[in-house]
């Protein structure tokens, strides 16, 4: 038995995933508070990236609306958090984001390529300025305080959202919906001719992916404590999922997860050591990744695996 054979084994993967999940779910028992908060942030990035990749990965439609969905989730929590049970507020965050996505999807059916990118960018900005205006003029406030929740509880919520996102991503990939999405990415006209209801498939998937972002935003708002429109609808949260997914590579399901995990951990590491240089460093990493890792980490790993596989046969 050699390494290459073991790690290309299906039960091995399943075992590994179960092990990781058990470790993650028992973390609050033995982990430090800092560890829990750090992991919460990392998992948030993974959820954002993974749910972004559910829609944008196979279809190639680059959405910059992530921050809008995240922000809608946050505001839902800020408004409902005091009056409703936590689980209701989180689900509501997801559902309202989902509705916004369905509406956006239905409106932007004709837009492709750059126009779709621009529209989703506009959506995030518009959401920010409308909420800003509304809060100023109607409610005469700038921001809102959100209920405070214990870190382990936030952690469990974010973990459950993560597992659901993972399951959704996995099953969509293997379902007819996933195949339809893949076809749309390859050639949308051909997909339509083959009998794929292109519109419906796109809109539904967009809605599903927004649900997880909204739910994650709702629970994360309790960690932020105070939110205002420029925090909740920060356009950076639209950019980051794109960057992390490309960084990790979208050919495989684990690509976005790997990309987000590495990115989030690097951020934490750099922000504490070089608070002034870390974004600069990000920029450099990004340019280098675009130039030398066109298929992300996944591309690199697949290449390495293929090479070790070839060595095996010869």
């Amino acid at each position, binding site marked *: 038995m050699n390494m290459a054979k073991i790690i290309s084994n299906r039960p091995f993967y399943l075992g590994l995933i179960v092990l990781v999940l058990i470790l993650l779910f028992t973390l609050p028992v033995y982990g430090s508070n800092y560890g829990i908060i750090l992991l919460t942030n990392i998992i948030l990035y993974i959820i954002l990236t993974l749910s972004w990749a559910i829609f944008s990965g196979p279809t*190639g439609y*680059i959405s910059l609306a992530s921050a809008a969905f995240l922000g809608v989730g946050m505001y839902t929590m800020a408004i409902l958090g005091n009056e409703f049970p936590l689980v209701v507020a989180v689900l509501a965050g997801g559902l309202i984001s989902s509705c916004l996505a369905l509406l956006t999807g239905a*409106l*932007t059916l*004709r*837009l492709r*390529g*750059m*126009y779709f*990118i*621009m*529209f989703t*960018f*506009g*959506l995030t*900005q*518009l959401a920010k*300025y*409308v909420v*800003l*205006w509304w809060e*100023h*003029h109607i409610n005469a406030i700038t921001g809102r305080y959100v209920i405070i929740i214990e870190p382990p509880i936030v952690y469990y919520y974010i973990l459950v959202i993560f597992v659901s996102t993972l399951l959704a991503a996995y099953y969509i990939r293997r379902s007819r919906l996933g195949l339809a999405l893949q076809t749309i990415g390859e050639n949308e006209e051909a997909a339509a001719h083959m009998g794929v209801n292109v519109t419906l498939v796109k809109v539904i998937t967009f809605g599903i992916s927004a649900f997880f972002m909204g739910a994650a935003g709702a629970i994360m708002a309790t960690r932020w404590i105070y939110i205002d429109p420029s925090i909740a609808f920060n*356009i950076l949260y639209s*950019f980051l999922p*794109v*960057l992390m997914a*490309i960084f990790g590579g979208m050919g495989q399901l684990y690509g976005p997860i790997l990309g987000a995990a590495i990115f989030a951990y690097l951020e934490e590491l750099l922000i504490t050591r070089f608070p*002034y*240089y870390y*974004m*600069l460093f*990000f*920029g*450099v*990493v*990004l*340019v280098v990744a*675009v*130039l030398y890792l*066109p298929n992300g980490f996944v591309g690199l790993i697949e290449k390495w695996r293929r090479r070790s596989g070839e060595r095996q046969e010869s």
Partner: protein
Amino acid sequence: MMVTILNVVIDGILTGGIYSLIAMGFGLQYGVARVLNISHGEFIMLGAFATWSLYTFFGINPLISLVICGPVLFGIGFLIHRTLFSRLQRISASTGAYEASSLLATFGILFIIQNAALLIWGPFVRGLGVYSYPVSFAGTTFGFNRLITPLFAIVISVAFYLFISRTRLGKAIRAAAQDRVTAGLMGVKINSVLAVCFGLGALMASLAGSLISITYTISPIMGLEYTAIAFIVVVLGGLGSISGSFIGGFLLGLIGSIVSYFDASLALITYYVIFMLLLMVKPTGILGK
């Protein structure tokens, strides 16, 4: 009443002129070089801060800085295209793949320039405070800067338009925009032309930045706001149309100043509503066929 209208119109032309400059450079970069440059605003910020530094530390007149900063940023843009984007173009399988990866690369450039600027100039909001003395014009008084900025913006825009439509290099650029391969076959040095286009985009951004520093306050994180404006104007005027960007800029500036007259906080909302409605109804812009 007349004075109010005049004020609104002058304000509209002031912001409109700057919007036009920004959008023309941005439109050229996307229309010809196929780079959707998210870092466009960062070049504007660089131009503004270079002007500010030259004035504060060396006492150089901001209007002279126009001709100093512009060519320097042209050089930087040219080099970035030569090193980064031409390589990306070589390794990209298709135009679509190149558009996506060049978009990502400009995210990287955005982070690099913005944070380098934060390190150099600090997070402070700066203002130049030149030419702000009042002058009488048509029976009312204006800050002098509010009159010369649009004047310069119009002169630069017209010069840029003439350059694209009348010169040999401009013809090469238009040819490259229409059909890159055929233009190459006709003897256009396509890689140089694309690099020149990217450089010209940076040049226009720098000029806009210098003018902005004369009239408005500036900060290292101002870039993205102007990139968003470029997005809107370019869609308004039609993607890839230079004259569309020019007209669209002034149109948006006027709309902005009229809305601001009633409620300043609604201006940005109006911009984005127009932007999204246009994308839905007529993505080719007001001048598009």
